[in-house]
């Protein structure tokens, strides 16, 4: 049985293919269209899924759309009926779109799919937003039975859902509904701090360690009413997302002592303190939620999904809270992951197929579910681009890359199938030595062309994780934040403590400074031989050479650019940034040997 899952028309559209219950292919449209967070119909991603399995649309038993557009429309109407006469601006903007386009979504989807071959509406199914999140969290997990928690902005109307998964069945039991949403609350602060909603949230999380959470009481007093069982309501008089085109209003600005920060403008301590406060509140609410889940569902396993589950700092706290023995988080926890979830839901619940559970392993295959390029394809593309490269055996390639890394070089690492989800996990990554004191600065200025308040994330050999971080579980998808091991830390002097922002980040705070945040935390990725043998070998060889099983792993892109997908995009990024060395398949390229000029440098709007 072949099932396609589709997530589209909000942000981060994606397509996924399930064959006999196995996830065969999945990718986000942005990687093909080169438009970050692309929300259009994922035609290129769908084409990739079909090509990957050598199928045509005739072979597809059904296509599953990740939510119910009509229920979403009903929620909008209900909201206007509650807020009118306030809300006209929002109404006048949203309604024409709905009336022209979205209400006829079924027809539109059928039309889009028909471009690939004959397709009729009978083969199109719709699930619910939180059901596809829950399915994406439970079905690929290694658990036979688990509690499920979905937390996001909003789908149709659910914003928080608690459920149980057992074998091939998922049942959602409790919900919180719009406008009461932890995701929207965090998004409101993201907006207020001058970042983009639905993508800048991780920046707020990254700013938080610089601040003092002095506004926590203010938030609990004025903005959110949290009950002891984790349920909550958000006080709408401070927000604008029900009735307007912005997230927060003037009353909100008064509460935090000033207007919204203009995007790209200077960040001050006040902004840091606000970020720290909403992060603390979010962690507090998430812990209350997971404790309530533990009390309501008889299971020691927890599956998480929804955009808020990308808050890896909070995830680390949930793990430490000890109410669950094991936690599994869908790597594409945001709406992109709903493509997988929708397809898995149909396979197991609509068609009642048995679930296959891997022994001790999840079904995401390391999230390496995207396109890959054969050695011949890589060579052909590189030759056509005029690249100067040598072909090496695997052992020689690894030796050369380790040599470069340990002498402070920045390496582009393009290997195997592209990652599904927002993180680069060693298939489309830029790698560097985390021990070098200035590496964080070098990478940001020479490669990413930005100043960043966030350090980079470390990849570490799975069996060595406990020696380097205060973490004794796996984190293959970079979804847990844990402190750097005490013994590796370097205490800051009082003068250093008082440094501000990036100056503070540039003080070496551990023996792996490039991946250590100002609060000594790190967003860890454990690397496993089972899912990415080549990257595992590279880390092992780097450890053999240096004694350090850790590498800096940042996504292979420049600011505002979707992660590279093809060898050509990798080559362009390599040539237009300070990357010294590029390893594409078995091909190795040195920057100082290149003779071509890449003149048409693609431009990307800042993210």
């Amino acid at each position: 049985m072949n099932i396609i899952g589709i997530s589209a028309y909000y942000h981060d559209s994606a397509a996924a293919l399930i064959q006999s219950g196995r996830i065969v292919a999945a990718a986000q449209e942005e990687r093909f269209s080169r438009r970050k967070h692309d929300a259009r119909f994922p035609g290129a991603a769908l084409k990739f899924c079909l090509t990957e399995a050598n199928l045509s649309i005739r072979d597809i038993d059904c296509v599953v759309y990740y939510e119910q557009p009509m229920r979403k429309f009903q929620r909008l109407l209900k909201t206007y009926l509650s807020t009118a006469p306030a809300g006209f601006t929002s109404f006048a903007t949203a309604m024409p779109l709905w009336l022209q386009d979205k209400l006829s979504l079924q027809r539109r989807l059928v039309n889009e799919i028909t471009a690939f071959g004959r397709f009729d509406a009978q083969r199109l199914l719709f699930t619910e937003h939180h059901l596809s999140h829950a399915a994406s969290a439970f079905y690929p997990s290694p658990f036979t039975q688990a509690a499920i928690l979905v937390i996001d902005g909003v789908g149709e109307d659910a914003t928080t859902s608690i459920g149980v998964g057992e074998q091939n069945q998922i049942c959602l039991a409790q919900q919180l509904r719009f406008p009461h949403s932890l995701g929207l609350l965090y998004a409101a602060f993201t907006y207020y701090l001058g970042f983009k909603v639905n993508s800048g949230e991780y920046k707020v999380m990254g700013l938080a360690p610089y601040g003092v959470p002095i506004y926590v009481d203010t938030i609990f007093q004025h903005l959110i009413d949290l009950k002891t069982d984790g349920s909550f309501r958000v006080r709408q008089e401070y927000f604008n997302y029900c009735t307007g085109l912005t997230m927060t209003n003037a009353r909100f600005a008064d509460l935090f002592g000033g207007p919204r920060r203009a995007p790209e403008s200077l960040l001050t301590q006040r902004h840091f303190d606000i970020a720290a406060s909403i992060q603390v509140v979010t962690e507090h609410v998430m812990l209350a939620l997971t404790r309530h889940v533990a009390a309501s569902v008889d299971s020691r396993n927890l599956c998480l999904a929804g955009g808020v589950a990308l808050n890896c700092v909070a995830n680390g706290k949930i793990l430490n809270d000890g109410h669950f023995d094991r936690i599994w988080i869908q790597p594409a926890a945001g709406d992109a992951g709903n493509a997988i979830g929708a397809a898995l839901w149909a396979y197991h619940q609509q068609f009642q197929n048995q679930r296959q559970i891997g022994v001790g392993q999840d079904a995401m295959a390391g999230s390496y579910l995207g396109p890959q390029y054969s050695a011949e394809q890589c060579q052909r593309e590189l030759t056509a681009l005029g690249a100067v490269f040598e072909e090496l055996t695997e052992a020689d390639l690894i030796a050369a890359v380790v040599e470069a890394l340990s002498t402070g070089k920045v390496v582009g690492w393009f290997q195997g199938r592209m990652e599904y989800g927002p993180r680069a996990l060693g298939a489309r990554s830029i790698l560097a030595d985390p021990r070098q004191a200035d590496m964080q600065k070098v990478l940001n200025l020479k490669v990413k062309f930005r100043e960043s308040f966030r350090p980079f994330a470390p990849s570490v050999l799975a069996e060595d994780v406990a020696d380097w971080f205060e973490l004794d579980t796996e984190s293959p998808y970079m979804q847990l934040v844990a402190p750097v091991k005490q013994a590796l830390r370097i205490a800051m002097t009082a003068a250093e403590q008082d440094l501000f922002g990036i100056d503070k980040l540039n003080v070496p705070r551990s023996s792996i400074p490039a991946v250590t945040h100002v609060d000594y935390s790190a967003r860890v990725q454990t690397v496993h031989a089972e899912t990415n043998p080549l990257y595992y070998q590279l880390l092992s060889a780097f450890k053999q050479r240096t004694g350090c099983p850790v590498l800096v792993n940042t996504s292979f892109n420049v600011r505002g650019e979707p992660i590279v997908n093809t060898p050509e995009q990798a080559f362009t990024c390599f040539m237009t940034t300070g990357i010294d060395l590029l390893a594409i398949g078995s091909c190795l390229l040195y920057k100082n040997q290149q003779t071509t000029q890449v003149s048409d440098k693609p431009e990307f709007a800042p993210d």
Partner: protein
Amino acid sequence: MSAGDSFILTEWRDYKIMNRVLMALLFYGLITPLAVLLRLLGRDLIQSQPDTQVNSYWQRLEPIETRNRR
């Protein structure tokens, strides 16, 4: 700019104005009176206010099989 272009622009602007007028009619003529009526009846469709009288805001769901799906 040729005359043809400006004609299209005018038409587009008219269309936008028409849209706005229609939306205003819908919003103030239909949605708003309904909203006022609901408020008079004490109905709050999205339960927008915190409630100190209850211990929990969780909404229990009926088992999934019985819910309608399209």
